[in-house]
C-alpha cells in the first residue's frame, strides 16, 4: 500500500511537539469562534492567516485546519443548546438535538453529537487515505447536469420524508427558492428581487435567515409557552458522557450509513449541508422509531452529525487536488496556500508530498485532539442549560443580533433577521416545516445555476439529464426517493398490517 507508507511518513511530520501544540491551540480557538456569536470558522481562519506567513506550510495548514475542526464541533454546541446553528451544515442537528437538550438531557445530546461527528470525520480521513487518487478523479466527472442531479437527490431524499403534508413542504420550499434568488443572478447577470432596496443586491445571507428562523422564532414560542427546562442535576456528569459514548455502537448501522452518505456527498460536490439533510431524511424514513424523530431521538443527532463531518473531511480532498474550495473556510485556506507559495491543483500531490500527507496525518490527530477537548467541555456547556430563562433569553437575542450584524456590518441584516424571526414563529404556529426552507436557501441557487448551465449546454433539451450513465442513475435515484412514501403507503394499504411500534 503506497498510500499507507506515505501516511506513515506524514505521521512522522505531523507528530512533533510543536505540531501537537499548534493543534491544541487551533482546536481551542476553533471551539471559541464556533461557539461565540458572529465569528464563525471563515472569519476565525482569516484572522489567523496573517500569523501563518512566517511558518512552514505544513505547520500553517495544521494550525488552520485544527481551528476548522474546532469550529465545526463548537458550532454543534449552539445548535443543540440554543437552537442556533452556526453553520448551514449543523441545521439538521437542531431537529433532535435541541428537543433533547430541552428535555433535560443536554449532556447526552452533546456527547452523542461529538461522538458521531468524530466517527464521521474518521470515516472521511480513512477514505482519503485509501482512495486519494481515485477520489480526485471522481470529482472531475461532475459537470453541470451531474451537479444538478446531486442537488435534486438531496431535495428528494428530504421532501419525501413525510411528517408534514406535502403541500406545506412545497410552500416552505418555494419560499426558500424565492429567497435564494435575491441578488445578482450568475447566469444572466441581472439583479433580481431586491424590492428597490439597493443593499439587497448582496442577497439573503444564510446566517441572517437561520438566526431569525431558529433563534428568535424559537424564543418567541418559548416565551408564549412559558418555557422552562426540566431540572437538571447539578452534578458534573462525566459518567453520562462516558455512558453515551459507550452506547454509541447501538446506533452502529445509522453511523455507518450516515458516514457513507457523508463521504459520498463530500466527494461528489454535494457538500456537508446536503449530506446532513439527506442523512437525517433517510434515517427518519428507515428508523422503526420514526414517530420519535423531532422530539429528541438520538438517531436524529447521530445521522446528521456523522454525515456532516464525513462530508466536510472528504471534501478537503477535491479542494486540494482540483483547486475548488468547498466552503468559505476552505476558500480562505486556499488563499493561504497561494500565499505560502503552493498551487492547489493536480500537481500538489506529486510535488508537495510532505505537505499533503502531513496534512492528512494531521487530520487524524487533529480530530482526536478536537474530540478529547470538546468532550472535556461537555459538562461546562451543559451547565449553561441551568441558567434561568430570564437570563438566557436576552443573551439569545444578543447572539442573534450580533451574529446578523457581523455578516456584513449592516443594520439591514438585523432588520431582516427580526423579520425571519416572525416568519419562523408563524411557521411553527401553523405547523409548516422549516427544514425545506433552509435547504432551499442554502443550495437553491446552486441547483438553479446548475440547471440553467445544463440547459445552455443542451440548447434547452432535458435529454441532457439522461445522456450519461452517472447523471441518469442520480436522477432516477432521486425520483425513487421522492416517490417512495407514496409507494410504501400504497403497499401498506394493500397489506393491512400493523406497523412496527416505536
Amino acid at each position: 500500500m503506497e498510500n499507507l507508507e506515505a501516511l506513515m511518513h506524514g505521521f512522522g511530520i505531523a507528530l512533533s511537539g510543536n505540531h501537537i501544540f499548534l493543534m491544541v491551540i487551533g482546536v481551542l480557538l476553533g471551539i471559541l469562534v464556533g461557539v461565540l456569536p458572529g465569528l464563525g470558522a471563515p472569519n476565525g481562519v482569516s484572522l489567523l492567516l496573517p500569523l501563518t506567513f512566517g511558518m512552514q506550510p505544513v505547520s500553517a495548514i495544521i494550525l488552520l485546519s485544527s481551528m476548522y475542526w474546532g469550529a465545526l464541533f463548537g458550532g454543534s454546541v449552539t445548535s443543540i443548546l440554543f437552537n442556533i446553528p452556526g453553520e448551514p451544515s449543523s441545521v439538521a442537528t437542531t431537529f433532535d438535538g435541541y428537543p433533547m437538550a430541552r428535555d433535560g438531557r443536554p449532556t447526552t445530546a452533546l456527547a452523542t453529537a461529538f461522538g458521531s461527528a468524530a466517527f464521521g470525520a474518521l470515516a472521511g480521513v480513512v477514505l482519503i487515505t485509501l482512495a486519494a487518487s481515485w477520489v480526485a478523479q471522481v470529482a472531475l466527472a461532475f459537470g453541470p447536469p451531474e451537479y444538478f442531479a446531486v442537488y435534486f437527490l438531496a431535495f428528494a431524499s428530504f421532501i419525501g420524508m413525510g411528517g408534514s403534508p406535502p403541500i406545506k413542504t412545497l410552500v416552505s420550499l418555494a419560499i426558500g427558492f424565492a429567497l435564494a434568488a435575491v441578488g445578482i443572478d450568475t447566469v444572466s447577470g441581472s439583479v433580481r428581487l431586491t424590492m428597490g432596496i439597493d443593499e439587497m443586491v448582496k442577497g439573503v445571507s444564510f446566517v441572517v435567515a437561520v438566526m431569525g428562523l431558529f433563534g428568535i422564532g424559537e424564543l418567541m414560542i418559548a416565551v408564549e409557552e412559558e418555557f422552562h427546562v426540566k431540572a437538571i442535576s447539578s452534578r458534573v456528569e462525566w459518567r453520562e458522557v462516558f455512558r453515551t459514548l459507550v452506547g454509541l455502537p447501538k446506533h452502529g448501522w445509522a453511523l455507518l450509513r450516515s458516514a457513507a452518505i457523508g463521504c459520498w456527498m463530500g466527494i461528489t460536490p454535494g457538500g456537508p449541508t446536503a449530506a446532513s439533510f439527506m442523512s437525517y431524511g433517510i434515517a427518519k424514513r428507515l428508523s422503526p422509531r420514526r414517530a420519535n424523530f423531532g422530539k429528541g431521538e438520538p438517531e436524529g443527532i447521530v445521522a446528521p452529525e456523522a454525515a456532516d463531518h464525513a462530508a466536510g473531511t472528504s471534501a478537503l480532498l477535491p479542494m486540494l487536488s482540483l483547486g475548488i474550495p468547498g466552503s468559505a473556510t476552505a476558500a480562505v485556506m486556499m488563499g493561504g496556500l497561494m500565499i505560502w507559495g503552493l498551487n492547489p491543483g493536480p500537481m500538489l500531490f506529486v510535488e508537495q508530498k510532505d505537505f499533503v500527507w502531513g496534512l492528512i496525518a494531521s487530520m487524524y490527530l487533529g480530530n482526536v485532539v478536537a474530540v478529547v477537548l470538546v468532550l472535556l467541555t461537555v459538562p461546562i456547556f451543559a451547565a449553561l442549560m441551568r441558567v434561568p430563562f430570564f437570563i438566557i433569553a436576552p443573551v439569545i437575542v444578543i447572539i442573534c443580533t450580533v451574529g446578523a450584524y457581523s455578516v456584513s456590518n449592516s443594520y439591514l441584516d438585523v432588520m431582516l433577521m427580526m423579520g425571519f424571526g416572525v416568519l419562523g414563529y408563524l411557521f411553527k404556529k401553523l405547523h409548516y416545516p422549516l427544514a425545506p426552507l433552509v435547504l432551499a436557501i442554502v443550495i437553491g441557487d446552486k441547483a438553479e445555476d446548475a440547471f440553467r448551465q445544463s440547459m445552455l449546454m443542451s440548447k434547452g433539451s432535458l435529454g441532457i439529464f439522461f445522456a450519461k450513465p452517472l447523471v441518469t442513475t442520480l436522477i432516477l435515484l432521486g425520483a425513487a426517493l421522492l416517490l417512495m412514501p407514496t409507494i410504501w403507503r400504497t403497499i401498506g394499504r394493500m397489506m393491512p398490517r400493523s406497523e412496527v411500534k416505536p
Partner: protein
Amino acid sequence: MSQKPTFAAIAFGLAIGLTGAANAAWQPAKPIEFIATAGPGGGTDNFARAVQNIITKYKLVEQPIVVVNKAGGSGAEGYTYTKAMAGDPYKVVFGTSNAWNQPMVSKVAYNYTDLTPIAAMVHDEFLLWVKQDAPYQNVQDFLKAVAAKPPGDVKMGGAQSKDTDETLTRMIDKAAKVKFVYIPFKSGAEAAVQLAGGHIDAHVNNPSESIGQWKGSTQRPLCAFSPQRLPDGPKVTATQNWHDIPTCVESGLAIPQFQQPRTVWLPGKVTADQAAFYVDLMKKVQATPEWKEYIERTSQTDTFLTGDAFNKFIKEDIERTRKVAADEGWLISN
C-alpha cells in the same frame, strides 16, 4: 462677561488650527477599511491583501488597516457600500473593470462616477485554454474546428455573466466569425475544473486561475490576449513557461489586447488632498520588492495608471465594452 475673551481666543485658535491642517498634507487619523469586492481567496481579495501586507510591513501608514470582503452581487455589494460612504476617506475599495462595466449591463445602484478613482495598479492577462488532450495544436486549428460545427455546439466557460470573460468570448466570436455558447460559472477556478473534466471545450482564464491545472497537464493555453508575449520566467511545465505561449495576434486571432485592470477607489466627495495621499501610498507600495514578487507569482503585468492616464483607460475600456454589449443587447436602458 469675563468669559467672552476666552471664547474669542478659542475661536481664533481653532481658525488657525484649521488653516494649518488644510495646508499640511492629509494624514489618516483612524483605522482604514479596505473593501475587497470579491470573496476570500479570489484575485481581487489577493490583490487587496497583498497591498495591505506591504503597507503593514513597511509601516507606510500609522493607522491599522482591515480588509473586509463584500462580494455579494458580483462585487456590486462593495461598490454600493462605498458609494453610501461618500466623503469618508477611510474606506478604500479594491476591484476590477467591473466598477464601470457592471453598471452598463445590470441595474445596480452605483456607477463608477460615484467613486473617486485612485489607480489601476496591475493588469491581469487573459489566455485561451483548451483541454490537454484536445486535438488542436494552435488557435487556428481550434477555431477551424469550431467553425465546422453548428453554432452553439462548442462550449466556452467563464466567470460570471456579461463580465470580462463573456465580453472576450463575444469578441472572439466576431474576430473569428464563429459562435460559442457561453456557460457562466461562479469563478474562473470552477471553469478550470469543468474544462479538466471535459464538460466544456475552452475558457479564457487568467494565468493564476489555471496555473495549477496547466502544471498538472489537464489543460494548456493556446494564446495570450496581450500585445507582446508574457515575460520570460521559470518553466511552468516540463518544457514551457509563459513566454513560450504565442500572442493571439501572432497566431492569427486579431484581438491585440484584452486585460483586466485591478483598480483602487475612494468613495465620492473626498478632498483632493485625501485622494493624493492614497495615490502616493499606492506608488510607495508599487516600489517595493514584495510587490514585484506578488506580480510575478500571479503572472500579471505591472502597469501603474493614475490621474488622467487612468481616466483615459476607463473611457477607452467603456467604449470597447459598450460596443460588444450593444451588439449583444446587454445594455440596460437608463
